[in-house]
């Protein structure tokens, strides 16, 4: 058994986290972790639904200290939660809400004491192989799939990322994240990066551009902004001035070089894009404004088997299949050749066209239909999907309501166009060119519905 410290060996009195009204030292953070750890059950697993990032981090590390698994669902949609509860009998909700957000499960409130004195506690040690978290992918079939993460491996991935990132920013940063803390990207970059790699954690999860500027202004430099491509574009369009930001981190959806350059110009910072997935965590980075090749993080090896590329190395308990077709260069860095056919990414959420089409076709009253990516007047980072539907006697609203019960709302077609029939060929196939022709009759040259 290899034991590693729960937190890095930084000076105990060094600032560790920024709360709305105070600065927390590492010793104080550890005291909070210990305080919450004392209240946790001896066994079972925890559904950490804390809203505040600081409470979330304290509760996560308290669970790690106590050897308890933290379960991080993709969403709280009833269908998803049912699968999560089935995977984890004995699941208990912990959260900083006033009331239990999931009344069907047992619940424990997270309340931190505001004691003035901070005991200097010994650093807890954790087994490298301790399974600390279960994260979920939505799965191309729509069935949520669980992925388990071990403490030592997650930590190595974070340190590998920090090595690259801190070299670009001139040192560990205070981190503002606009991204969900229970998804892999937000968990790694806005929670674990500051906690495990010497940065500073912030409790806010700002949303509107003015909130993002405020949160950044409350932190000392160097600052890191963790954001998604869509949110970044809106932040640039808002024209709101930001305090100096050493680097902006982007992930969850492909970022164009044009948007990366616009961000660097607008905020005078470096734009660093992460390549990764829920299954692998972060495995590579690049400065998208200037680079097309991805730089692997230390500890990651890529192995090609036919068309497939697998990530291997100490970071992974088992080799992990990448979602993309890639070309590996002699130095081990790589370029994406193709996003896997059939997969779509809307605002950072992945699904497959075949799942979406199958879901559409099984709706009562729908006799035929197909999802497609609508033409747009300008390059947008978030592409809404559209759909042609043949459903005599049904209204758009009825079909949308039925779809909403089966898929994440970001995939709902906008527009949903009702037509009399799809131009299928003699074999019943819908050829790509027939679909394109049909699309062209419904959209004008600017990408608006005609």
């Amino acid at each position: 058994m290899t034991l590693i410290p729960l937190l890095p060996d930084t000076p105990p009195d060094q600032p560790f986290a920024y709360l709305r009204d105070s600065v927390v030292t590492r010793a104080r953070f550890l005291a909070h972790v210990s305080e919450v750890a004392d209240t946790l059950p001896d066994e079972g697993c925890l559904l950490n639904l804390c809203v505040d990032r600081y409470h979330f981090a304290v509760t996560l590390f308290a669970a790690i200290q106590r050897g308890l698994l933290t379960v991080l669902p993709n969403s709280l949609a009833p269908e998803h939660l049912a699968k999560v509860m089935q995977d984890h009998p004995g699941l208990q909700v912990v959260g900083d809400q006033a009331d239990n957000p999931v009344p069907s499960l047992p619940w424990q409130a997270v309340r931190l004491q505001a004691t003035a004195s901070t005991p200097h506690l010994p650093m807890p040690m954790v087994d490298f192989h301790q399974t600390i978290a279960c994260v979920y992918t939505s799965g191309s079939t729509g069935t949520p799939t669980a992925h388990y993460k071990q403490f030592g491996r997650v930590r190595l991935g974070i340190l590998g990322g920090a090595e690259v990132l801190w070299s670009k920013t001139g040192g560990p940063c205070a981190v503002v994240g606009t991204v969900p803390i229970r998804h892999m990207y937000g968990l790694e970059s806005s929670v674990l990066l500051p906690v495990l790699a010497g940065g500073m954690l912030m409790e806010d999860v700002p949303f509107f551009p003015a909130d993002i500027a405020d949160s950044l202004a409350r932190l000392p430099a160097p600052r890191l902004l963790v954001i998604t491509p869509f949110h970044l574009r809106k932040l640039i369009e808002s024209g709101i001035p930001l305090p100096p930001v050493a680097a902006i981190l982007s992930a969850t959806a492909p970022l164009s070089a044009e948007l990366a350059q616009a961000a660097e110009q607008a905020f005078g910072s470096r734009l660093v894009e992460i390549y990764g997935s829920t299954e692998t965590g972060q495995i590579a980075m690049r400065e998208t404004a200037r680079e097309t090749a991805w730089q692997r993080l230390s500890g990651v090896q890529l192995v090609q088997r036919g068309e497939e590329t697998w990530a291997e190395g100490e970071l992974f308990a088992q080799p992990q299949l990448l979602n993309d077709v890639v070309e590996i260069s002699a130095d081990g860095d790589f370029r994406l050749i193709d996003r896997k056919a059939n997969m779509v990414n809307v605002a950072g959420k992945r699904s497959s066209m075949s799942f979406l089409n199958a879901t559409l076709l099984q709706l009562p009253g729908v006799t035929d239909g197909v999802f497609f990516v609508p033409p747009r007047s300008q390059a947008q980072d978030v592409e809404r999907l559209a759909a042609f539907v043949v459903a005599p006697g049904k209204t758009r609203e009825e079909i949308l309501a039925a779809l909403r019960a089966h898929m994440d709302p970001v995939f709902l077609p906008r527009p949903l166009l009702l037509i009399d029939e799809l131009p299928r060929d003699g074999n019943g196939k819908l050829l790509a060119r027939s679909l394109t022709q049909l699309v062209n009759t419904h959209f004008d040259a600017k990408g608006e519905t005609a």
Partner: protein
Amino acid sequence: MELDTTVPSQPDAALQSEIAGLIVTALNLEIAPSEIDPEAPLYGDGLGIDSIDILEIALVVSKQYGVQLKADSADNTRIFASLRALTAHIAAHRTK
């Protein structure tokens, strides 16, 4: 005497339909602005608006009225509770 705050004044009614038009255009919704129920939640089932759209609306509102929406004290939920609530917020905070 207490003012009845549930009925919008005339200028607010004009503002309300203007904002409804902005929302429909910005989000590419396939409905007429007048079809938005002023009392219904903007989020969720009604219009099918999600957080991506909320950010889009925030941008349009800041450009058009000079109102920077902020999520302080979870106002986000209240402001987007309905078209009427959003209109009231903009009417109270607009700078142009």
